[in-house]
């Protein structure tokens, strides 16, 4: 069975989804989904170990060899991202049973798990596959599931957000499709590796350039690259909190993965270098500053962290833009680290919503007294977001700054650190009101607010501890990201 791990990684959650539908009982469906999640987590760990030991794993679906059939291709990068998705997806799933109780009608809950698993499987499929059209198909599976998940939100604006996201997402996917079509017409293949080999060495081909731009823009829409990010705040704000935690921790990460894959694996690290790299850096920096500034002003905390996500995506884009092995490592580290901190933050918000029903800033006044564990989690994850030492956030900032200094881009380095100063502002305003703010008289008159239930707290603290643990013992993400980065830069292993 060990040979089949790559495909099992995807089809376990994929086939668990219809099974959940047949169970038709929310609690059973949850248990089953968790089981599927755990299995896929175990598989992804096994895959990472396998790749580290014996190099790229290639799995031919239907036993048709690569360019003819669809290939599953697990290299270091995909194994690393698979691990992020399956672990974060599973941890958030653990919290879902409690987390959705207040937000989703009881008769829809089993459907929720079906869609959740589909979404997760779709994301895993995007990462595992070595075939560019297959990417499109799985992208759509996960996207469709996402739209539906977002629409679960209680606020009617969730519907509008989902619609908006659907339109943008579909345009993005179709752009990707155009890019794929153009590339196919130039190479006659859909396999990523084969395509890279067959791409005309003479990169002056306008078709190839156009394909590149369309793919980048299409993916940019999906990952909320700075000027294309407008769908994200609404989506994150109005989706059920669990869904937000899941999306923030995984979906954008997969889009980043895709961007890296397209840029480095298909077109090669140097393709369009002079043109695209400054654009990435500028867009990334703009994203960091504009989104952070907007975040400071938000009164809805969920929206605040949504904008902060846009800003954090900016950091990852900067790393891609600098385009050295070191900066890419920074991006990959931030991929993992940001998943940890945003997962934790949104889960904490889920806990707040569970008890209070809102994430408005005023609700947080004095909340630390009533929900000490939840708030402590927000503090630690917030520190990580700022990039304080001994948390994961520090590690990725370190690499990004180091990379920009290493490439002689001093201003970029300074701007990166200035960006985290903005994070201090928006995180600390929240911490302050939670610990020192005075609760409204109206809030205190009602029944006292209790700490969130364990069903939410345990997954939440798992993530918080991970935030600190991987900030101190950095070996696992560091090794994986370093070898993945050098692999992408063509240094081999």
């Amino acid at each position, binding site marked *: 069975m060990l040979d089949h791990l790559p495909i099992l990684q995807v089809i376990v959650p994929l086939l668990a989804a219809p099974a959940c539908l047949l169970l038709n009982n929310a609690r059973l469906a949850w248990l089953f989904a968790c089981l599927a999640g755990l299995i896929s987590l175990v598989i992804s760990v096994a895959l990472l170990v396998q790749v580290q030991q014996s190099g790229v794993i290639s799995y031919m679906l239907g036993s048709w060899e690569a360019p003819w059939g669809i290939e599953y291709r697990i290299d270091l990068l995909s194994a690393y991202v698979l691990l992020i998705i399956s672990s974060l997806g599973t941890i958030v799933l653990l919290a879902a049973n409690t987390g959705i109780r207040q937000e989703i009608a009881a008769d829809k809950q089993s459907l929720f798990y079906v869609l959740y698993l589909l979404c997760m499987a779709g994301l895993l499929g995007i990462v595992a596959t070595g075939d560019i059209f297959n990417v499109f198909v799985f992208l759509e599976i996960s996207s469709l599931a996402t739209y539906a998940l977002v629409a679960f939100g209680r606020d009617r604006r969730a519907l509008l957000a989902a619609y908006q996201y659907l339109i943008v997402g579909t345009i993005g996917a179709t752009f990707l499709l155009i890019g794929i079509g153009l590339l196919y017409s130039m190479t006659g293949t859909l396999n990523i590796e084969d395509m890279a080999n067959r791409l005309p060495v003479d990169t002056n081909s306008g078709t190839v350039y156009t394909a590149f731009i369309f793919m980048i823009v299409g993916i940019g829409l999906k990952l909320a690259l700075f000027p294309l990010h407008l769908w994200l705040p609404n989506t994150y704000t109005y989706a059920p909190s669990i869904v937000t935690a899941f999306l923030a921790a995984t979906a954008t990460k997969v889009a980043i993965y895709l961007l890296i894959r397209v840029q480095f694996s298909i077109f090669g690290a140097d393709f369009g270098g002079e043109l695209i790299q400054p654009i990435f850096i500028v867009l990334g920096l703009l994203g960091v500053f504009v989104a952070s500034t907007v975040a400071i002003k938000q009164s809805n905390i969920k929206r605040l962290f949504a904008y902060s996500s846009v800003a954090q995506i900016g950091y990852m884009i900067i790393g891609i833009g600098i385009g050295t092995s070191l900066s890419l490592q920074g991006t990959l580290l931030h991929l993992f680290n940001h998943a940890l901190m945003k997962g934790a933050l949104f889960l904490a918000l889920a806990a707040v919503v569970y008890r209070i029903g809102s994430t408005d800033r005023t609700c947080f006044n004095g909340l630390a007294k009533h929900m000490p564990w939840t708030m402590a989690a927000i503090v630690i994850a917030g520190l990580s977001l700022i990039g304080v*030492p001994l948390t994961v956030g520090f590690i990725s900032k370190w690499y990004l700054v180091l990379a920009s*200094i290493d490439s002689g881009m001093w201003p970029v380095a300074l701007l990166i650190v200035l960006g985290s100063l903005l994070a201090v502002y928006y995180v600390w305003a929240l911490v*302050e009101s939670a610990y020192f703010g005075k609760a409204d008289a109206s809030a205190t008159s009602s029944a006292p607010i209790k700490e969130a239930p364990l069903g939410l707290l345990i997954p939440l603290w798992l993530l918080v501890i991970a935030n600190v643990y991987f900030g101190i013992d950095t070996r696992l993400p560091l090794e994986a990201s370093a070898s993945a980065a050098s692999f992408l830069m063509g240094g081999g292993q």
Partner: protein
Amino acid sequence: MNLSPELLIQLIILLPLVAAAGVVLSHRHPNIREAISLTIASSVFILVFLLYRQIINGETALVHWISILPGLNVSFKTEALSVLFALIASFLWIVTTLYAIGYMRSHHEQNQTRFYSFFAISIAAVMAIAFSENLFTLFIFYEVLTLATYPLVTHAGTEKAQKGGRTYLRILLGTSIVFFLPALIATWAIAGNLSFTVGGVFADDTPSLWLAILLVFFVFGIGKAAMMPFHRWLPSAMVAPTPVSALLHAVAVVKAGVFTLMKTVVFIFGMDTVGELITTDFLLYLAAFTILASSLIAMKQDNLKARLAYSTISQLAYVSLGVLLASEAGLLGSSMHIAMHAFGKITLFFCAGAILVVSHKTEISQMGGLGRKMPITMIAFFIASLSIIGLPPTGGSWSKYYLLLGSLETQHWVLMAVLMISSLLNIAYLLPIPIRGFFPAKSTVSQASDGSEAIQGSETIQEAPLPALIAIIITTLACVLLFFFPQPLFELAKMVGVAP
């Protein structure tokens, strides 16, 4: 006792954390809680003292904890300056704990458990800073210290405390993120090594312009050294309860700042390098400006703690100046001044706190005639003031002497003049307080008697609670003793920057 220095270092760092845990666990029993604090504080001091004996005998130690990033380790090492700093901090921790018991109880502060636990964590961070083997480790605990002291600053929870806390955090985190961190990473990128090394880590062919810029970044980045224009956090932090102000903002936090600066100049850049950089002069004059400007501001402050805060800023700049002089005497003076100022300033703060607890007075103009009610406190205040000014028979005179010598050696006449003028200013803003306390001006007396029962009328005013009083006496005695017996500190300070 034959404990290995490796074990000692780790115990010194970990014991305060144990204290923090103990404090939290015993939060229902104030007596046990404070007994734990005191016991552990004393044991830490004893351990540091043992370490001192060892380093005098030439024994050093290196402890490696974990490697966070490849080549970047969290590790600790004994070294003269470290021991000096640790010795002062741990000794004053005992005294402060003693003082805090009296102060906090009679002042009926809320959340005392939170207070003692974060206090202990801060001490742990200070110890870790002191023994850091490299700049990376130092940076980590520098940040930890900032965050651990934040709840102490905002302890009161009032609007004012929050605002102070915000400024505190904003400036300290801000400078360290914007200047310190990039400088740190750049150093790593250029030199590939962050270990404190005698003579510096940079290769000889490193462009000196880069180094010059880096030096500016470090000086500004180490916000805890309160160099202008990044000094405002210190007055803001005065909203904290007095023991916090005393230990953290006269000793631990600010001294961690100048300590970091010294470490950086001596062991990252190397003294010789710093002497040659083009920005050094600029920074020297900035320090001189800070000395004068903050002394002048201090004169205008009526709030006693605020005046002391600005005095601290000025005194810190002395240390920075001494370091940047990059001469042996300057360094010696700076090292000594860390110690001397610590004892002097903590005494002043203790007195201020005692006055606050007993008479609820915070403004200097209200303190006329207080000396008759609280003679011991006021005498202590007077002696400590002498030490800050640098007059015999107090320890402060030694450090001032060496600082002057340093500026003389390097022929910085302007700086020398600044030091002299500043001493005069010190006299002008410190001495009037005890003088008024004992010999109230006529107007003050009449005001007081007219206005209310402020001083004369209230029979309740007497000396501070006993534990606090003992603390005050200890530190005052130390100020005097250090004049007559400066040898131990002197020996340590002389070892700083000398290759083992």
